[in-house]
């Protein structure tokens, strides 16, 4: 049976910030460009970014420069970042911010009418370009309008279930339209994966339901390498109650404005963990501190810590934290000007991702590119707030240009028939096969395994158990079947492939976490609490040996001689303080 088919020079998967920026860049470079999104355009997880976009414009503090931003990023990433990516990001973010403004983005201003910049954790100077607490929405809407008026074909609510290769090269992909269930295939001379992270492997997450690690799994299956997958950022303050909103983000600005953390005994516990920086310590430290208080029996009735702004002037709270005031009043029945919030860690961001060439976004698989949260390297072991919005602009553009240049060198590509048939067979099996596994139940099982054994604190015993339980899901995944055979907008069908993707991602995380015998950034081992000299110099790179069998290889951090002075200077100054 013939199915809907489209040919492109460059096809981008994912319409968050990085995907939109990549598509715009590819189209500007003259490539015939397509953009596929799993949801409607403009709904991607980027809309939830609040704080701002880190760029050393120096509008507020003229001392700022790319060198300091580079140093801050490296320090935040515990020096496991790809040096070249941190360098490119710091150098190019200011131009990308100005460019957005030229496309119509509207940001808050300084008194002399330039883009304003705010302070944020880990940034030496006031650096984050922002608009209120909805910077991500502003960016995505700006790029959405730019993309709509560029020569880009957009496919909304289209799920991609497989990348298709011809020999060694990725030449396209296959999936279906969610509204009708009709199958669709794309051929592309170059394909950019911009599918974001995979927060939905945890029950408690700030991530949108789309964040199921599709790109990580599809690229893994196509032979790409992934890096740093054990590093996951747990944001210290998510809502813990009521149950329906558990994980919903409580912005860092609450602590920035003077919010105090206390345990159930009324103790200001950050005094024990980081007396110098207290509540404004780095995200990994605050998250671990709250978790420890709860684990040791000093948690709130709903299993979190109290975050209190009721000592501040109530008008000031309502003016500076309007969305938080509304969020707690509406969803939790809590007036934060009068009573404390209850908060706990929530899965927020994946530092790791598909391993790419820093300059072009190219993976080790010909024809396959990656960018944004789907790619890894830029953030090392821990990401600074504000660096993800810069990341997606800088590397989204670079991946789009890289993919277009690659495509220009090629004549037409075609999808091998047997590959297409196999892809069709897979989605059909989820719908009409003889399987008996319910995807909703398996998703729940997987979230429990990851939360219990590979969450914010890890140890050998828990990780070994988690890996064994995940491996027991491998055979069950092949028996996944949608509870309903309906083609049109079938949620169970959609979840089958997503659960398979999340299993692949979970295995990478748990196996990487077991291998890294130290604690660093977003990876905390109870049985290896200190930094290790060996792991300070190595990333873990993973690729497929077939199926869920994975090769994990410690790989030296990518450095550049010309940046050594900057890195050493920062290390020295940290030691001195």
């Amino acid at each position, binding site marked *: 049976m013939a199915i809907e088919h489209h040919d492109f020079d460059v096809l981008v998967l994912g319409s968050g910030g990085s995907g939109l920026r990549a598509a715009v860049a590819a189209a500007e470079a003259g490539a015939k460009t397509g953009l596929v999104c799993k*949801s*409607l355009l*403009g*709904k*991607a*997880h980027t*809309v*939830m970014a609040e704080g701002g976009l880190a760029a050393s414009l120096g*509008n507020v503090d003229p001392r700022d420069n790319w060198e300091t931003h580079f140093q801050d990023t490296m320090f935040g990433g515990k020096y496991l970042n790809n040096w070249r990516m941190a360098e490119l990001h710091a150098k190019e973010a200011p131009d990308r911010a*100005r460019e957005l*403004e*030229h*496309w*119509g983005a*509207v*940001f*808050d*201003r300084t008194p*002399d*009418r*330039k*883009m304003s910049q705010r302070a944020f954790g880990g940034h030496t100077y006031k650096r984050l370009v922002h*608009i*209120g607490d*909805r910077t991500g*929405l*502003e960016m995505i*809407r700006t790029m959405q*309008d*730019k993309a*709509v*008026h560029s020569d880009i074909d957009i496919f*909304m609510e289209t799920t991609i279930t497989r990348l298709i290769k011809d020999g060694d090269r990725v030449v396209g992909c296959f999936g279906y339209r969610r*509204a009708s269930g009709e199958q669709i295939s794309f051929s592309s001379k170059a394909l950019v994966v911009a599918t974001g992270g995979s927060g939905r492997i945890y029950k408690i997450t700030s991530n*949108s*339901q*789309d964040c199921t690690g599709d790109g990580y799994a599809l690229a893994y299956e196509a032979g790409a390498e992934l890096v740093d997958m054990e590093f996951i950022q747990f944001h210290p303050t998510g809502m813990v*109650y*009521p*149950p*329906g*909103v558990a994980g*919903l*983000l409580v912005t860092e600005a609450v602590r920035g404005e003077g919010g105090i953390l206390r345990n159930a005994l009324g103790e200001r516990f950050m005094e024990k963990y980081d007396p110098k920086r207290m509540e404004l310590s780095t995200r990994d430290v605050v998250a671990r501190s709250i978790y420890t208080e709860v684990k040791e029996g000093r948690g709130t009735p709903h299993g979190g810590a109290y975050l209190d702004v009721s000592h501040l002037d109530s008008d000031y709270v309502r003016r500076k934290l309007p969305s938080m005031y509304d969020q707690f009043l*509406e969803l*939790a*029945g*809590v007036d934060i000007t009068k*009573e404390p919030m209850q908060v706990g860690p929530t899965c927020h961001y994946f530092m790791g991702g598909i391993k790419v060439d820093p300059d072009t976004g190219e993976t080790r698989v010909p024809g396959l590119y990656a960018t944004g949260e789907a790619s890894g390297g830029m953030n090392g072991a821990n990401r600074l707030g504000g660096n993800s919005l810069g990341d997606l602009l800088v590397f989204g553009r670079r991946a789009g240009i890289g993919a277009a240049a690659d495509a220009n060198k090629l004549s037409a590509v075609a999808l091998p028939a047997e590959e297409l048939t196999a892809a069709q067979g897979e989605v059909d099996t989820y719908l009409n096969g003889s399987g008996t596994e*319910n995807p*909703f139940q398996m998703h729940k099982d997987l979230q429990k395994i990851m939360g219990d054994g590979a969450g914010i604190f890890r140890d050998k015993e828990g990780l070994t158990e988690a890996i064994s339980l995940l491996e027991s899901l491998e055979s069950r995944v092949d028996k996944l079947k*949608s*509870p*309903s055979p*309906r083609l*049109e*907008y*079938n*949620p*169970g069908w959609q979840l089958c492939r997503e659960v398979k993707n999340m299993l692949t991602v979970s295995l990478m995380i748990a196996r990487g976490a077991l291998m890294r015998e130290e604690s660093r950034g977003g990876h905390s081992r109870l049985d290896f609490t200190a930094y290790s000299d060996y792991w300070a110099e190595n990333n873990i790179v993973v690729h497929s040996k077939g199926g869920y069998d994975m090769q994990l290889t410690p790989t030296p951090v990518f450095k550049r001689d010309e940046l050594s002075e900057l890195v050493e200077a920062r290390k020295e100054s940290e030691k001195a303080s």
Partner: protein
Amino acid sequence: MSETMAAGGTRTLQIWRGDLTSGQLVDYTLETEPGMVVLDAVLEIQRSQAPDLAVRWNCKAAKCGSCSAEVNGKPRLMCKTRLDHLPADEPITVEPMRAFPIIQDLVTDVSWNYEVNKKIIPFTPREDLPEGDYLIDQADTDRMSEFRKCIECFMCQDVCHILRDQRMHNKYYGPRFMVRLASLDMHPLDGIDRIDQIADEAGIGLCNITKCCTEVCPEGIHITDNAIIPLKERVVDARHDPILKIFKRNNTRPGKKKPEASA
């Protein structure tokens, strides 16, 4: 904890099930947890009772505008509507937005909105701008920012009677895109004269300011007062200013160009 948290217990939801050809309300009863929102209940029903129930959602944090539906007859974001804020002694009805064609169950075809957006010329800088950084007042930023808060839930489009009842989708862009046009027209550095589009193709004259759109906006945008009425005034100023009429001149504002015909 506040007493509002005490609620929970058994609730019945009447959810509209069907497609473009037919459909009806179907009763589902579930045990609720304190603080549940309508989307939680719908997803729990999907998980445990009706795995083929189609519902569109993404962020579940009132930031993406995907889960719009008509709850007890009123357009609401399902993720922001608590069960215990709805009358406890009667079932809760959940229906798709009625101004758009049904795809399946609670999911509607909102693609028309995306087609309208394509017709709006994006921000285009004035040609007389000096080199260097854009300089913009915070006051202008604040004014535009209200409009740019829009999360495209399309509930304003759903309640606009020009679209919902009179089905004049070919003559009126709807409140969402009046807001978009306002954000562009009020950008101090935008170089496009948008008056003809606002008056003619977008059909602003059709709005008779009943403010239904403003009432349902989950972002609290003053759609009618701050976007539509000022745009109506700009159209009047440009087209019907008596002094300019004497000289038979168009009132194109400084720095603004008429769009090219092809645009």
